[in-house]
């Protein structure tokens, strides 16, 4: 294999390949910006999805626990940040309003660990009752959890207004750190400034890189190996003295923490959260990203997330002529949904193990029905 990124390749080639990749990633938003900020936005959202997919990959890919309610943790992170960084709490709760008349404004250095922690707790909480279940049953129960969370998000505007119901929470602060407000464009020189979307791009890119490092370290750690042992044969893993209960809870919690952080970032980036962003379809899409890309394989998962999140947005721009051809019946959103559905079916029929599967492990994926 002539892959300059893997350890077998010559040292110089490896360094050169990584440098080129890094430069390309750093330059990407500036290139995209040439076509308009909307394209940078697409890249931003793609990075958030990469993080989500990496988190879910810990649960599904490493530990073999199929979680169809993953978006609940994304929601937990987003609502956490929305509550802590918008006037909503101060306006609706007198006590909080008195303590923080200008609303609570958290710094990035608190937001990220807090989102990770709260989502991890939620993950462990939701994971605990499902420990005995596997496969389809687990999938269905987690799906039920996701729906329960969504129903609560939708209805918790009464009797106490916590989530503002279907209307959602707006006026969420942008991310600020070191005095830099990512919500405002940054003037470099008089005639060149970096727009907010690009600033977010760099923040998200940094988070994704940290996530990838954590995931690949986890994969080779004792915990990662133990997860894979559970995935391959839970009874054998238990017999070898692994504490399967704690390990599964840990997988749920670790995966969820990624979801929480991306959720918080999503809230800050959009400035608005509502239950609509956290539908079951969203969970399904994240599972599809992991499975389409190549379950349990970090590059595959990244590929799947980038493809499935950016392709539909890109298609939006080519859908115009098609819409005219079909008298407006086939508009952009319908077209992208159609193509995503077809992609899910066709890719699975042609490559049941994903577009870029892991080279060796993953026997459980080949288990016969």
């Amino acid at each position, binding site marked *: 294999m002539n892959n300059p990124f893997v350890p077998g390749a010559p040292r110089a080639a490896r360094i050169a390949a990584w440098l080129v990749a890094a430069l390309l990633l750093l330059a990407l938003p500036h290139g995209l910006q040439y076509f308009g900020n909307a394209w940078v936005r697409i890249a931003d959202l793609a990075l958030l999805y990469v993080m989500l997919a990496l988190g879910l990959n810990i649960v*599904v890919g490493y530990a*073999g626990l*199929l979680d169809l309610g993953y978006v609940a943790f994304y929601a937990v992170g987003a609502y956490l940040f929305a509550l802590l960084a918008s006037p909503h709490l101060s306006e609706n709760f007198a006590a909080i309003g008195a303590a923080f008349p200008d609303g609570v404004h958290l710094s990035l250095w608190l937001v990220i660990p807090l989102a990770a922690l709260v989502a991890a707790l939620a993950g462990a909480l939701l994971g605990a*009752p*499902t420990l*005995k*279940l*596997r*496969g*389809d*049953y687990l*999938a*269905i*129960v987690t*799906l*039920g*959890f996701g*729906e*329960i969370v969504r*129903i609560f998000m*939708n*209805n918790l505007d*009464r*009797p106490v207004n916590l989530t503002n119901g279907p209307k959602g929470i707006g006026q969420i602060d942008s991310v600020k750190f070191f005095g830099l407000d990512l919500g405002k464009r940054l003037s470099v020189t008089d005639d060149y400034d970096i727009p907010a979307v690009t600033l977010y791009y760099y923040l998200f890119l940094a988070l994704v890189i940290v996530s990838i490092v954590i995931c690949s370290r986890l994969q080779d750690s004792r915990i990662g190996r133990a997860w894979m042992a559970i995935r391959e044969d839970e009874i054998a893993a238990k017999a070898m003295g692994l504490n399967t209960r704690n390990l599964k809870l840990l997988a749920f919690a670790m995966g969820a923490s990624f979801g929480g952080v991306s959720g918080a970032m999503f809230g800050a980036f959009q400035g608005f959260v509502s239950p609509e962003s956290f539908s*079951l*379809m969203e969970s*399904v899409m994240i*599972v*599809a990203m992991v*499975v*389409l890309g190549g*379950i349990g394989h970090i590059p595959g998962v990244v590929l799947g997330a980038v493809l499935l999140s950016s392709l539909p947005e890109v298609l939006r721009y080519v859908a115009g002529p098609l819409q005219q051809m079909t008298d407006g*019946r*086939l508009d952009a959103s*319908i077209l992208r*949904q*159609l193509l*995503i*559905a*077809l*992609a*899910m*079916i066709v890719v*699975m*029929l042609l490559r*049941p*193990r994903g577009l870029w599967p892991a080279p060796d492990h993953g026997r*459980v*994926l*080949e*288990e*016969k*029905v």
Partner: protein
Amino acid sequence: MDILLQQVINGLVLGSVYALVALGYTMVYGIINLINFAHGEVLMVGALTSWSMIGLMQEAMPWAPGWLVLLLSVLIACVVAAALNFVIEKIAYRPLRNAPKLATLITAIGVSLLLQTLAMIVWKPNVKVYPTLLPSQPFALGGAVITPTQVVILALTAISLAVLMWLVHFTRLGRAMRATAENPRVAALMGVKPDLVISATFVIGAVLAAIAGVMYAANYGTAQHTMGFLPGLKAFTAAVFGGIGNLGGAVLGGILLGLIESIGSGYIGALTGGVLGSNYADIFAFVVLIVILTLRPSGLLGERVADRA
């Protein structure tokens, strides 16, 4: 007391819809261990097909009485749904029968999304008013009321169940289905053609789902391309509740779930002092699902264990 009786009636009607859909899930799962995620969409296609047919027929033959139009539209909806499910199985599920399980799950989700999108293109995304074709004057029943549509739903469910039970227990096809569910390889050795049996299962499931879809639309008076998702999910819950793979269990689970949901949403306001309202109705199915699966993973009448990947 009157409220209770009313909610029981509503629950039975809702439960019979769930039961019919749950049978489709449970038969498919019993034979090929696949959660057919697209099953709710078959219900939706059935309902929308019958809606279109009713429109066409009311124009073409204005003399026809309501019940005849409804009956014909149900029959056509069944045929369309059956053909659709037959094709889906052949194209999307059959090639993956020996593939990784997750791949099949993703395909099924893809099919579900595809059907919703196609329905949106064919029928446009707006909500359709499903016409009331039967007399709308309700009968008094104790302190509660029951509409003719609801009576027909209950009767139709009973007939469908009777036909299905006869089919499964007293015909060659039924024996072949039971044999394949027990052990496909041995069944094949005994001269059963598993592919044929699986196709037949999908067709039967689709017919039941289409009937359920028409009844669901008739009961609520609306139809839309997204209408299949929630009943599909709840019917699956019902199937798991009753013990997946078990036909009687699916019916029992469906009826019980309908009752729990109906009675629960009728009383949740009073029980929680108005804190939680009937907008939490959808929560019951999922709570039941989680409780059942954690306490009794094999369901009420099931023998299978949940510990299969």
